[in-house]
């Protein structure tokens, strides 16, 4: 099995970038508003299905003519769509309940469940797949040296994820509006005292997190498939990563994402699929009991 080790390592590194992207959106919303957005997985699902709607003609919704757009057009539109959905989710529902974390918890998971029914209604309960990278643009697999059989879409996902993370970093460190997000995430009262419009910051955060979720969702759907139940696994994963990395910490999410990514891929490859999920759960329990604030995060305050 060791002959496959380089491949396994490469695959793990690739998928971890996607996990990081997914976790960052989740942790940003928590950092800024204290809200655990359990509809985050549903936003991922929205990304996959939005892309499916735009790029393949297998789904039809009322009013909207089914179309087949080129991936380079469909992809940005899908991402923007999810960003807008996330923004609306905040503005129409969450901002009315965010003062009560329990109600927000429940409201967001109900949104996720409702989203599942909507997807089933329009796209059917069966699984659908789509190709993100047309084979005339790039070959479908790449290999170099001892590494073989890496899917191009995974590589592209890796690259896009890191570009997105890089852009995000630039945004929160170099721009005023981004820095306001960071400030609010560190101390809300302090931010308010310096004139930050906390509400606007929150809404912007949801928009940005939605964009990240959109990107993540499209790639997630491309590398596995789009199904109405696809939101639960990534949500659990995001939750686990964010807790281990530290709620509210972007750096923590990245590190924890790689930790979990390598752990899961390695365990899945060498110990079998059944143990993949269990080991992550065990790690989570260990972290929760021994290091509740995570690797880099701050303690959960009420």
């Amino acid at each position, binding site marked *: 099995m060791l002959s496959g080790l380089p491949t396994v390592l490469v695959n793990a590194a690739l998928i971890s970038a996607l996990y990081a992207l997914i976790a960052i959106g989740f942790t940003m919303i928590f950092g800024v508003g204290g809200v655990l957005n359990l509809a985050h997985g549903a936003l991922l699902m929205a990304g996959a299905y939005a892309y499916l709607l735009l790029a393949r003609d297998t789904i039809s919704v009322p009013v909207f003519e089914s179309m087949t757009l080129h991936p380079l057009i469909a992809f940005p539109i899908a991402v923007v769509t999810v960003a807008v959905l996330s923004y609306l989710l905040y503005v129409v529902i969450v901002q009315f309940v965010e003062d009560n974390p329990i109600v927000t918890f429940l409201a967001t*998971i109900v949104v996720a469940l409702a989203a599942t029914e909507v997807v089933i209604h329009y796209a059917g309960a069966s699984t659908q797949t789509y190709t993100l990278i047309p084979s005339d643009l790039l070959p479908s697999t790449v290999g170099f040296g001892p590494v073989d059989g890496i899917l191009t879409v995974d590589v592209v996902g890796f690259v896009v994820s890191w570009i997105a993370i890089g852009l995000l970093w630039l945004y929160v460190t170099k721009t005023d509006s981004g820095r306001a997000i960071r400030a609010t995430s560190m101390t809300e009262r302090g931010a308010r005292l310096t004139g930050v419009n906390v509400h606007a910051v929150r809404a912007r955060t949801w928009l940005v997190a939605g964009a990240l979720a959109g990107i993540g969702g499209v790639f997630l759907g491309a590398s596995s498939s789009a199904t109405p139940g696809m939101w639960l696994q990534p949500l659990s994963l995001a939750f686990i990563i964010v807790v281990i990395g530290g709620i509210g910490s972007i750096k923590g999410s990245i590190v924890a994402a790689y930790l979990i990514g390598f752990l899961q891929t390695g365990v899945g490859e060498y110990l079998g699929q059944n143990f993949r*999920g269990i080991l992550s*759960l065990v790690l989570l329990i260990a972290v929760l009991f021994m290091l509740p604030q995570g690797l880099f995060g701050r303690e959960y305050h009420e």
Partner: protein
Amino acid sequence: MSSDSAFVRATDAVKAQLRTRLQPVWAVLCTVLAPLDRAIQPVADLYNRSLGRHFGTMTGLQFGVIALGFGMIATVPFWSPFYSETLNITFAVASIWAIFAMSWDIQSGYTGYISFGHSVLSGAAGYTIGLLILHYDPSMGPLVTIPLAVLASLVLGLVIAVPSLRLRGPYFSLITLVGVLLFTNLIFAFSEWTNGELGIHQVDPFTYEPWIRYYYMAIPMLVIAVGLTYVARSNVGMVLLTIRENERAVSSAGLDPTKFKISSFVLSSIPMGIGGALLVYYGRAINPVSFVEISNSIEIIALAVIGGMGSIIGPLFGSFLFFFLEEELLRDFIEDSSTRTLVLWLFVLGVLVFARNGVFRVVWHALGAVRGDSE
């Protein structure tokens, strides 16, 4: 805070408008209902003097509604055929879920520590019965299996509660969620014993006769309702509520909040175990989908929330309301089952956003305010 937002301000304005528009309607309702309230008050006071201390005092109207509600629940098989053939069945199932919702409430609703894992408690009870009948002694009767099932649920409750209630807020919830995932994995890992997804069907239900079956479910449910309300209204309940509002205040008062939190979880495991056992003897095949999967936990929470968290009776009525909507009312208008589910979730969402204290609570307060306003 959120009042920064133009959208929120706009909706507040709309809400204020609605309130002023509906004011005269409310005034009329009060005038009409106040005499009724006054009329029932003497009976209510009788109850208030005797049992009010233990279960809470009520105004006339409130007492009337409670009496009517419980009266209807107690007599379902007699009046339900007038509505539909299946109302019996629907309410039998609703009774079991009411037990789950009330059990969840005494723990999560009161302490504010939201548990996503209650379905493992009823699952443990269900699988205990199933495994006993399948592998130990098929002739075991419910009088033996049910106590053992409840014991299993209790033990599992302790196992979960003791380590995890040290954690705060969402971490506790996450552990309970993990518990569900682990339990489900275990069921599949040991599928030679548990029969995996096919489940265990060898347990003979009490009966399929709708009338009798309904009472098998409803009577324990009513007893549990009384019991849990008693606890909730006692000092214990007050401490639990205080934990939800301000946990530090509890410890500064010299009480150990963790001990109370654990007690509430364990207390909640007992009726969960009973409910799980009842579900088995209702006739549900014991499999992961019906007993353990996360959707069960979420549904339990939804029932409690739409009724009104932290009130015990709220979740009871929430359960009946939800099942009535799902199985009876919505079926008349919506044929497609996924659209029906969507509408139900939107309803739950609506309650969370507009009436987060629950439908029952809103009604309860309104009833209580009838005479206050008109006098």
